[in-house]
């Protein structure tokens, strides 16, 4: 009786404990590094490393738009996968009707994939 409230059948207890212990470990590692390591900064050391050449300035600028496009496409298809999960658990009980409904959804996204593919958004050059 007590178990259902606080005990082993509360799955979140194990998550909290694991998160806490891992968090302590990670924090400890960073602080130990600060504590045990020497701190002797100099001008050459604190330059950005560019294979020995003098640094060519800040890296915080623009970069290829292809990466943004990949991120946007990812969101579309990842949400599709998220919708597939609940169906995958219960699809035996939903039978062919559930299958047909899910296939309608997948077909729409399949068309989207085909469109993106034909448009050349998946080509890297």
């Amino acid at each position, binding site marked *: 009786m*007590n178990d259902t409230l*606080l*005990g*082993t059948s509360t*799955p*979140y*207890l*194990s*998550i909290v*404990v*694991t*998160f806490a*212990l*891992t968090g302590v*470990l*990670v*924090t400890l*590692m*960073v602080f*130990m*590094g600060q504590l*045990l*390591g020497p*701190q*002797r900064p100099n001008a050459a*050391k*604190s*330059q*950005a*490393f*560019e294979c020995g050449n003098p640094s*060519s300035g*800040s*890296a*915080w600028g623009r*970069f290829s738009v292809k*990466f943004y496009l*990949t*991120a946007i496409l*990812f969101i579309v*298809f*990842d949400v599709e*996968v*998220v919708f*597939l*999960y609940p169906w*995958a*658990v219960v*699809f*035996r009980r939903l039978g062919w009707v559930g*299958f047909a409904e899910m*296939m309608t959804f*997948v077909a729409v996204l*399949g068309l989207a*994939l085909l469109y993106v*593919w034909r448009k050349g958004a*998946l*080509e*890297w*050059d």
Partner: protein
Amino acid sequence: MLIDVGIAAIKSLIVIGLALNLAGILGWIERKGSALIQDRIGANRASIFGFAGAGLVNTLMADPIKFLTKEDVIPAGVDRLLHTLAPCVNLFPVMVAFAAIPFGDVLTVGGRVIELQAVNINVGILYILAMMSLGVYGVVLGGWASNNRFSLLGGIRGSAQMISYEIGMGLSLVAMVMTYGTLDLQAMARAQGQLIGGWLPAWGILYQPVAFLIFLCAGIAESKRAPFDLPEGESELVCGYFTEYSGIKYLMFFMTDFVEVAVVAGLIATLFFGGWQVPYLGRDGFHFPWGVMLLLPPLAVVALQFVSFLLKLVVFCWLQILIRWSMPRYRYDQVMRLGWKGLLPLALINVLVTAVVVLAWQG
């Protein structure tokens, strides 16, 4: 309540210790294994009295101490907060993801049934996927905060690659969820204890060989190792997103790499190769299909299961090391093409075929 917290803490500590030691051991095996593959000696300073096997102990102890006592160089132009945060955000999710992999069946101590899984939730697959996705932040933050061109390139390459392969990985896992009808990793491992035709262990790879190949491929790409090591790409980007890191923070990125290998190996073992299952071993002992029974005490059964899990884990870690050292690096357009035009459609078709076959089977 206190006992439950204690049990949860002990299980977490076991798994965290396992992950940390595995990372150290893999670091040594990687050096020795690559030397073996490339026909050289490799890591010869790590031996004790000329015996290379003792180098393992040396590596486990010496490496962390050496890294801890090195200067943590923070270059002038970086975002200091994000620079420190990035290795933590990188290491934390993979460690807690590893904790969700079951390493044994149940252990009964004083009437209390303990599931041998540090994070025993019934949606283990979703939890691991969520945590693995968080790993992207460590890569992006590390690359961005460093204010270094190589780091930035490595960071954005890594993020684009990881999110591209996450879709294929997620879809291959959907097929596994359909096969077992559950999101619970422990239930999946248990389902693989059944026998097909009375003698063949019902391991996942027999039902889903295509999902296995997709998952292996996407898993290696997720952990950013060769042939998908473009975010790090030593010969072009120095060290990729952790170029500007030194000391313990560098070690944390390095450890993340190996714990990711362990997570992928553990998931492959759990989903496709029976997890902690030993063929024909039930909770009370062996039941061989030829009619012989061999009863064992519960503790021996649990020990056998744990050894079985470790063995499978090491085999699939070694498989990834073998792949890393025998394959050349892909070009970036090849990586993206494989992810979007290869794995994504293949995994979708695999899901459809699985659905049709299972539904036709049950009528």
